[in-house]
C-alpha cells in the first residue's frame, strides 16, 4: 500500500494518506464508469469555483482555493482507471485497518505477550496513534473484554483531555521508558517530527526547493554519516537557519519545515537522547517499530518473531538475525534479559554478525534500502537488467580492495621472494642469479628441502676445509641479501598503496556507483509499479539484448584466446625441437618457459635432487681430496683448458691482473683458497717465467706433470741427454720446469730428464738429475 502512496507522491506531490480523494469527490467505488467520474469531477470543480466567487466564509474560501489549486492533479489521478482502482483499494484497506480495532488488537496482542497491559499502555497507544482515538470506544471495550485491563474510563466518558500533547513537556520522570532508554516525551516528539516532515513533503514549493524531501527523514538528515550528537546539533542548526530564511523569503509554506527543525533542536537537548544517540538514530530509521519497542518489556521468543514480522511489513530485513543485529539489539542492549530462549536467539544472531555485516555492505553497495521493502521480482528484474553496471562496480571494488590491502599482499610476497632467493642461491650456487627468477613466486616445499640438504653439505665442506669465516658470506648470501630484497618489495608495495590511495578519488567513484545503483533500483521499482504485469515481458527484450551482448563478448574473447593459443602451440613445438640444443648450451637456465609444464618442473627437481645425491655419495672421496690438497705442499702446474680467461689480483674476481691463454701451463705459487661456494679453489699462479707477476685464477685444471726445480747457481740446459750436447740456455736456482715424462742416461749412467722450456710447450731441453729437485 505504501507503494501507491509513494508513486502518487512522487508523480503528483500529493500524499493520499492525508487527503482522501474519494471522500473529496464523494466517489463510492473504484470501478465507477469514466463518464460518471468525469461528471463528478466537473460538478465538484464548479462547486469550489462558486465558493471562491461567492462565499464570505474565510475558512471555506481558503479550503476551496486550496482544492482548486490541486484540482487538476486530483482529476488526473482519478481519471486514470488503474490509479483510481488502486487508490480505492488503498483507502479501503487503510480504512479497514484504521476503522476497526484490528490494528489495536494486533498491537496489544504483542504487548500482552511480554507484560500485563495497564492504563499507561493504553494512554500511550492513544497518545502515539492519535488517529485511533476515533475508535476509542470500541478499543476500550475490546481491552476490557479480551485483556481484562483495569482502570480504564467508563463507556461514554470523554477522555480527550487526558491526551494532552506531550511535546510541551520536556521530561516526565514518572513516564515509561522505551527499553529503559527513551522517555515517552521523546518518543512522542519523534512522532511529531515525522508528521511535520510529511506535512512539509506535501507542499510543492518546499519539495521543489529541497529535493531531500523525496526520501525519508532519516535520509534527509543523513544520519548514517553522523557519528555523534555534536554533529547532529550542528546539522540541525544549519538546516534551521536555512529553512527559516526560506520561510522569510517564500512564505508560510515552509512553516512545517521550520517547526520540524525546532522540534529536532528541542529533542537534541533531552538527556536520554544525549545518553543514547546511536539508538536515537535507529528510532528515526525505523519509526514504525518505535511504539512496539516502547511497550515491550519482558520479551519472549514468540513476541520477537511477531515483532520481526511486523517490521518486515514495512521494512526489508533479510531474516530475523538481520533484524536483531541491525535494529533490536542496538536498542535492546541495556535491557536486563532474563529469558533463556531469547538469549539463545541473540547468541545465534551474534554468531552471524560477520556474515550479516558483509551482506549489509553488499546491500548498501547495490542501493538496497532496508527502510523500504521491495519485492523479490523487482530485485530479480533489477539485477538482470542492470548487471553490467554491477559487474563494473565489482571490478572497481576488487581493485579498491586490493589496493587497500597491498601491504597484506606484499608481506607474503616479500617473504616468498626472500625464501626463493635463498633457495635459488643454495641450489644453483654459481649461476644462482640466473636462476632466481625461475618459478621464484611458486611456493615449493621440495625446493626448501633440497636447499636445506645443500646447506648442510656446504657447512660440512667449510668446516672440513677450515674456512669457517666463509660462513659470513654464506650468511650474507642466504639471509641478508634475500631479506633485503623481500623488504624492498614490501616497502615498494606499501609506498605504491599509499600513493594510489591518495591519488585516486575512491570515495567519489564509490559514491557515483552507489548513486547509480540506487537510482536504477528506484527506476525499476517505479516501472514495476507502473506496469506490474507487463514489466517482465518488457524486460525480456532487455535480458535478450544483454544475453546477446554477453554471447558476442564471449565469442570475441574466446576467438582471440584460441588464436593466441594456436600461435603459442606452433611456437612450443619449435621450442621442443630446440630444447635439447638449449640444454646442451645451458640456456635452459635462463629460459623460464622451459619449466612451465609440470613434467619440465619435475625434470628440473629430479636434476637438482640427483645432483645433491651425487654430492652426498661422492662426499667421502671429495673430503679425502680436500684433505690431501690441504696437506700437499709445493708448486703445481695449472692450465685453463676451456678458454682464455682472466686472472685477478685477489681471490675474489674484483681486479683483473691479466689474461691467461687456453692450453698454456702456468706454475702455481703454492697458495690456494677455497671459493665462497666451497665448490672449487682459487689458485695463485706465476704469470711469467721470471716469477715477478702473480695472479689468482678460478676453475683452473691442475696438471699432474713432474716438476723440476733447479738447485744450483748456474744450470745448463742441453739439447740432449749428456754433457756433449749443446747448451740451449742457462737456468737460475729455484727455476721450475715441467717435465715431458721422457728421460735418458748419458755414458756415465747419469739420468737426464726432458723438460719444457716455455709455457706453450713448444721447446724442450734436457737437464741432469744431479742439479735438480723433483717436486712431484
Amino acid at each position, binding site marked *: 500500500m505504501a507503494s501507491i502512496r509513494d508513486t502518487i507522491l512522487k508523480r503528483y506531490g500529493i500524499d493520499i494518506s492525508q487527503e482522501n480523494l474519494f471522500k473529496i469527490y464523494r466517489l463510492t467505488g473504484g470501478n465507477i464508469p469514466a463518464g460518471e467520474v468525469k461528471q463528478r469531477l466537473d460538478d465538484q470543480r464548479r462547486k469550489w469555483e462558486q465558493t471562491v466567487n461567492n462565499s464570505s466564509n474565510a475558512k471555506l474560501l481558503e479550503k476551496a482555493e486550496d482544492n482548486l489549486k490541486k484540482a487538476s492533479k486530483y482529476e488526473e489521478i482519478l481519471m486514470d482507471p488503474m490509479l483510481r482502482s488502486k487508490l480505492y483499494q488503498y483507502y479501503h484497506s487503510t480504512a479497514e485497518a484504521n476503522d476497526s480495532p484490528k490494528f489495536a488488537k494486533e498491537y496489544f496482542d504483542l504487548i500482552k505477550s511480554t507484560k500485563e497491559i495497564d492504563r499507561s499502555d493504553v494512554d500511550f497507544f492513544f497518545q502515539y496513534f492519535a488517529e485511533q482515538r476515533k475508535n476509542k470506544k470500541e478499543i476500550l471495550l475490546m481491552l476490557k473484554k479480551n485483556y481484562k485491563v483495569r482502570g480504564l474510563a467508563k463507556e461514554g466518558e470523554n477522555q480527550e483531555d487526558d491526551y494532552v500533547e506531550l511535546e510541551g513537556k520536556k521530561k516526565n520522570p514518572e513516564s515509561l521508558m522505551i527499553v529503559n532508554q527513551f522517555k515517552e516525551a521523546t518518543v512522542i516528539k519523534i512522532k511529531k517530527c515525522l508528521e511535520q516532515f510529511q506535512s512539509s513533503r506535501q507542499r510543492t514549493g518546499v519539495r521543489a526547493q529541497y529535493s531531500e524531501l523525496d526520501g525519508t527523514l532519516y535520509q534527509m538528515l543523513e544520519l548514517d554519516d553522523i557519528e555523534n550528537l555534536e554533529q547532529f546539533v550542528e546539522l540541525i542548526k544549519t538546516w534551521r537557519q536555512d529553512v527559516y530564511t526560506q520561510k522569510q523569503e517564500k512564505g508560510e509554506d515552509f512553516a512545517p519545515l521550520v517547526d520540524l527543525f525546532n522540534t529536532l533542536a528541542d529533542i537534541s537537548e533531552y538527556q536520554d537522547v544525549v545518553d543514547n544517540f546511536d539508538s536515537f538514530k535507529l528510532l528515526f530509521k525505523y519509526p514504525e517499530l518505535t511504539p512496539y519497542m516502547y511497550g515491550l518489556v519482558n520479551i519472549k521468543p514468540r513476541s520477537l518473531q511477531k515483532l520481526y514480522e511486523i517490521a518486515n511489513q514495512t521494512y526489508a530485513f533479510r531474516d530475523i538475525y538481520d533484524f536483531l543485529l541491525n535494529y533490536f539489539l542496538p536498542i535492546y542492549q541495556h535491557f536486563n534479559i532474563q529469558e533463556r530462549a531469547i538469549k539463545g536467539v541473540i547468541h545465534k544472531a551474534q554468531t552471524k554478525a560477520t556474515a550479516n555485516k558483509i551482506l549489509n555492505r553488499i546491500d548498501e553497495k547495490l542501493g538496497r534500502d532496508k527502510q523500504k521493502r521491495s519485492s523479490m521480482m523487482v530485485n530479480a528484474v533489477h539485477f538482470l*537488467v*542492470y548487471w*553490467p*553496471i554491477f*559487474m*563494473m562496480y565489482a*571490478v*572497481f571494488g576488487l*581493485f579498491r580492495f586490493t*589496493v587497500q590491502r597491498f601491504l597484506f599482499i606484499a608481506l607474503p610476497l616479500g617473504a616468498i621472494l626472500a625464501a626463493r632467493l635463498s633457495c635459488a642461491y643454495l641450489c644453483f650456487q654459481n649461476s644462482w642469479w640466473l636462476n632466481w627468477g625461475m618459478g621464484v613466486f611458486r611456493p615449493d616445499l621440495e625446493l626448501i628441502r633440497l636447499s636445506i640438504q645443500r646447506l648442510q653439505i656446504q657447512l660440512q665442506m667449510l668446516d672440513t676445509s677450515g674456512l669457517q*669465516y666463509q660462513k659470513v658470506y654464506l650468511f650474507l648470501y642466504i639471509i641478508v641479501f634475500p631479506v*633485503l630484497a623481500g623488504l*624492498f618489495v614490501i*616497502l*615498494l608495495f606499501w*609506498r*605504491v598503496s599509499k*600513493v*594510489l590511495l591518495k*591519488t*585516486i578519488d575512491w570515495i567519489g567513484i564509490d559514491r*557515483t556507483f552507489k*548513486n*547509480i545503483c540506487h*537510482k*536504477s533500483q528506484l*527506476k525499476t521499482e517505479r516501472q514495476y509499479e507502473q506496469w506490474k504485469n507487463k514489466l517482465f515481458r518488457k524486460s525480456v*527484450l*532487455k535480458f535478450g*539484448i*544483454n544475453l546477446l*551482448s554477453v554471447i558476442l*563478448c564471449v565469442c570475441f574473447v574466446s576467438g582471440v584466446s584460441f588464436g593466441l593459443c594456436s600461435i603459442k602451440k606452433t611456437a612450443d613445438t619449435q621450442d621442443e625441437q630446440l630444447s635439447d640444443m638449449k640444454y646442451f648450451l645451458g640456456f635452459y637456465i635462463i629460459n623460464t618457459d622451459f619449466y612451465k609444464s609440470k613434467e619440465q618442473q619435475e625434470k628440473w627437481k629430479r636434476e637438482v635432487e640427483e645432483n645433491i645425491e651425487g654430492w652426498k655419495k661422492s662426499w667421502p672421496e671429495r673430503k679425502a681430496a680436500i684433505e690431501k690438497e690441504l696437506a700437499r705442499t709445493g708448486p703445481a702446474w695449472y692450465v685453463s683448458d676451456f678458454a682464455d680467461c682472466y686472472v685477478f689480483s*685477489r681471490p*675474489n674476481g*674484483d681486479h683483473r691482473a691479466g689474461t691467461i691463454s687456453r692450453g698454456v701451463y702456468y706454475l702455481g705459487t703454492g697458495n690456494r683458497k677455497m671459493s665462497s661456494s666451497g665448490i672449487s679453489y682459487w689458485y695463485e699462479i706465476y704469470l711469467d717465467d721470471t716469477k715477478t707477476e702473480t695472479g689468482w685464477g678460478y676453475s683452473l685444471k691442475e696438471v699432474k706433470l713432474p716438476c723440476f726445480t733447479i738447485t744450483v747457481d748456474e744450470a745448463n740446459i742441453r739439447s740432449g741427454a749428456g754433457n756433449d750436447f749443446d747448451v740451449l740456455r742457462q737456468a737460475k736456482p729455484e727455476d721450475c720446469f715441467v717435465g715431458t715424462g721422457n728421460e735418458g742416461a748419458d755414458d756415465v749412467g747419469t739420468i737426464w730428464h726432458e723438460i719444457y722450456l716455455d709455457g706453450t710447450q713448444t721447446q724442450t731441453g734436457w737437464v741432469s738429475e744431479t742439479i735438480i729437485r723433483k717436486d712431484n
Partner: protein
Amino acid sequence: MATLKIFWSSVLGSIMLILSMICKTVYALLTCILKMFGGILMIVGILYLVYYVGMLMQEGLDAGYSLISTIAENFADLCVIIIAWYVIFKLTVMLFAIVRIAISNFLSFVLEGLGSACDRKYQYFIGIISKEIN
C-alpha cells in the same frame, strides 16, 4: 536501445576503469622504484665497501697479521678506497638524479597521460549510464 547503451557503456567503462587503474598503479610503482633507487644504490654501495674492506682485512689476517697491523699496513689503501668510493658514489647518484628526472617526465607523459585519458573515457561512459538511468 537504452539497454544496449548501458551494456556497452558498462563493458567499455570497466575496460577504461581497469586501464586507468593499471596506468596509475604502474606509474606509482615506477615512480616509487625511481625514488627508492637512490636508497638502494646507497645500501648496495655501502655493502660493497664493507665487503671490499673485509676482503682486505681478511688477507692480512690470513697472512698472520693482527687486525691493527693489517689496518696500519693498508691504511693508505683504505683511505684511497673510501675516498674513491665516495666520489664514485656521489657521481653515480648525481647521474642517476638526472636520469631519474628524464625517466619521470617520460613516465608522467606516457602513463599519466594514458591514465587520465582512460579516466576521462570512463567518466564519459558513466555519464552515459547515468543519463540512461535518469
